[in-house]
């Protein structure tokens, strides 16, 4: 028992921040990847959700195809496809594993976020939009200050759920060798046969790390939603 604990303590800094002398890795990198992918994914989701509600049919079809494509294929396949197929040497891109991971995760997340955003935009009450127009707002103001704001608030639980799910999904980037917590755990165990008894300890600990973060984040977001939601909705009705 004691040797298992001391093994974990010895490897803990590596698991959290990656190997010293290299670029940051470990759980820290998992978090950064998730945050960046959600942010980039949101920027991609905005035009896609707009295109899905476009009046011009071909544009709508393109947006639907985009969402169905990236929601329909497994993330592990998308990662390898981006890394070996698109970002590989064939097209002269030669992306690093980190870049490929970020691109794949952002595309994956953007498809889900576009769907959430579309549902949120569809839920904006027409009266709200019309009264904003009557007050003389420009289309852009209506979109950003009324529609988007309302959609983001209504869909907040869905967005946080997606972000937490994406954080767990970052574990999959181990297939292309990004030095996040799964890869680091694998490397720390190595091919050393004497490490075999520590496998369960190590991966269970990685599991506990994921669990602790995912569980805390989901509880925090629940509390945040409960606190902010009713007053926010009232606010958005009364102040426009």
């Amino acid at each position, binding site marked *: 028992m004691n040797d298992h604990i001391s093994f974990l303590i010895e490897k803990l800094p590596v698991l959290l921040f990656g190997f010293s002398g290299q670029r940051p890795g470990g759980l820290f990198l998992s978090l950064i990847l998730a945050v960046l992918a959600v942010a980039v994914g949101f920027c991609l989701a905005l035009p896609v959700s707009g295109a899905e509600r476009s009046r011009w049919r071909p544009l709508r079809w393109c947006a639907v195809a985009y969402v169905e494509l990236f929601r329909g*294929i497994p993330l592990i396949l998308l990662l390898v496809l981006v890394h070996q*197929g*698109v970002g*590989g040497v064939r097209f002269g891109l030669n992306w690093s594993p980190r870049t490929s991971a970020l691109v794949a995760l952002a595309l994956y997340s953007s498809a889900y976020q576009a769907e959430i955003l579309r549902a949120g935009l569809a839920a904006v009450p027409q009266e709200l939009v019309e009264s904003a127009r009557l007050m003389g707002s420009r289309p852009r103001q209506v979109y950003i200050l009324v529609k988007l704001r309302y959609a983001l608030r209504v869909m907040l639980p869905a967005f946080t759920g997606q972000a937490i799910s994406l954080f767990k999904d970052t574990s999959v980037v181990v297939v292309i060798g990004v030095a996040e917590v799964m890869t680091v755990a694998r490397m720390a165990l190595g091919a050393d046969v004497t490490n075999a008894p520590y496998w369960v300890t190590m991966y269970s600990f990685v*599991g506990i790390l994921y669990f602790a973060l995912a569980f805390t984040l989901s509880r925090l977001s629940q509390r945040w939603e409960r606190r902010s939601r009713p007053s926010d909705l009232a606010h958005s009705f009364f102040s426009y």
Partner: protein
Amino acid sequence: MTPNWLTPDLLNLLLQGLLLTVVLTAVTAALALILGVAAGTMRISGNRFAGALAVLHVETHRNLPALVLMIIWAFALPNLFPPELRRSIFFDNAFLNWLSGWSGLSLPYYTLAAGVALVLNTSAYLAELFRAGVGAIPQQHVDAARTLGASRLKLFWTLLLPQGLRTSFPAISTRLIHHLKNTALAAFVATPELFHSAQTAITRTFLALEFLMLAAVVYLLLAFAFSGLLRWVEKQWLVAGG
């Protein structure tokens, strides 16, 4: 018809992978649905012990990435045992040899472990969805059943199960499609399913883009077919059947 990079033996390899993906998805999805409904029911049963057990299952397996779960079951668990014991428990016994001969898998334990991890992971989500579906049943229906003198078992079979499944089925379908995509993770623990056989084909031919695109198209078609099947099930059994 077939392009020249898709030789017959590679096509055969991919088809075997496809078959395993379909079988793995079907079996684990069915088991996950049963376990999920069971866990969801335990949580609403009012029995404190059963409820706590269900909460433990749901929270553990929902907050762990499916891949971590798979690696724990497939790679870490056998390492708990000394080598000789490990061999006889996980890799070389009558049951596994029979399974290997019957299914053609060289190391069936890894596939079983991947399946167990998938069932646990998806059932945790399904339990919550089913519980939410039961929660949406109008109180009058439950009151009416009680007034008519339905036993708890009868109440479950005739009201909670069918109505709970019906209300939560759209969400359950979405999760099951996600489950189909999650089976690709099993490739990481040496399960020769579709994605794994695509990777094997790539190591033989070095044609990454071709085989990955092919696999992506097949997964898309599988997802469409599966969602069509689930919609059919919903229409046939849950809406019309009452």
